[in-house]
């Protein structure tokens, strides 16, 4: 599996890794920073990670996915640092013999990543900034 934190997301790197002659299906999810959040214009974002734990938790998710589905390969790549709206910040990719597994595992991985992987997003607006999800 390919699991890492990077400055810049490279979709081709993920696809090149996932490609395999025995895999008939590849599902890729790319999460990008939207330019609006709760009605306010987002001018910049900053992603901070607890690197070692983020990798560890992504490895746990990968292991769970390999146990739940019959997969060929799996990639989880998350960006850190300052990002402009529109920039890809996460790519999750799964290859499998048949498409059910790649769709389901990819969805599982992004859903769980958002719950458990220690990465934090700070949104900057024109007049202030906020750590997303920090407050109810």
């Amino acid at each position, binding site marked *: 599996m390919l699991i890492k934190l990077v400055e810049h997301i490279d979709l081709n790197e993920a696809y090149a890794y996932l490609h395999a002659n025995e895999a008939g299906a590849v599902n890729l999810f790319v999460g990008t920073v939207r330019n609006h959040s709760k009605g306010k214009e987002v001018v910049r974002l900053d992603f901070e990670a607890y690197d070692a734990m983020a990798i*560890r*938790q992504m490895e746990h998710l990968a292991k769970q996915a390999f146990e739940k589905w019959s997969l060929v390969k799996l990639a989880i790549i998350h960006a850190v640092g300052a990002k402009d709206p529109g920039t890809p910040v996460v790519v999750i990719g799964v290859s499998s013999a048949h498409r059910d597994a790649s769709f389901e595992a990819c969805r599982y991985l992004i859903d769980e990543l958002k719950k458990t992987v*220690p990465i934090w*997003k700070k949104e900057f607006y024109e007049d202030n900034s906020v750590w997303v999800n920090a407050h109810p």
Partner: protein
Amino acid sequence: MKILLFGITREITGQSRLTVPANAGITTVKALKVWLAQQYPAMQGLTSLAVAVDNEYAQDEDVLNPGHEIALIPPVSGG
């Protein structure tokens, strides 16, 4: 005992690494949370606050050992 801080907990405390004095008598995750709420009332306003030990999520009853890597995990927002 040293505690790694990220995101909003780093901003609340104004530091990226917090030292819990030995005389605070903190031995469990639960005790650490209680101590933090007293020292930094703003922590109580967070949606959630988890504690990680050696890169794994810890439970309230888990014992904290100063030799382990301990960190506060405020609500995550990756992806």
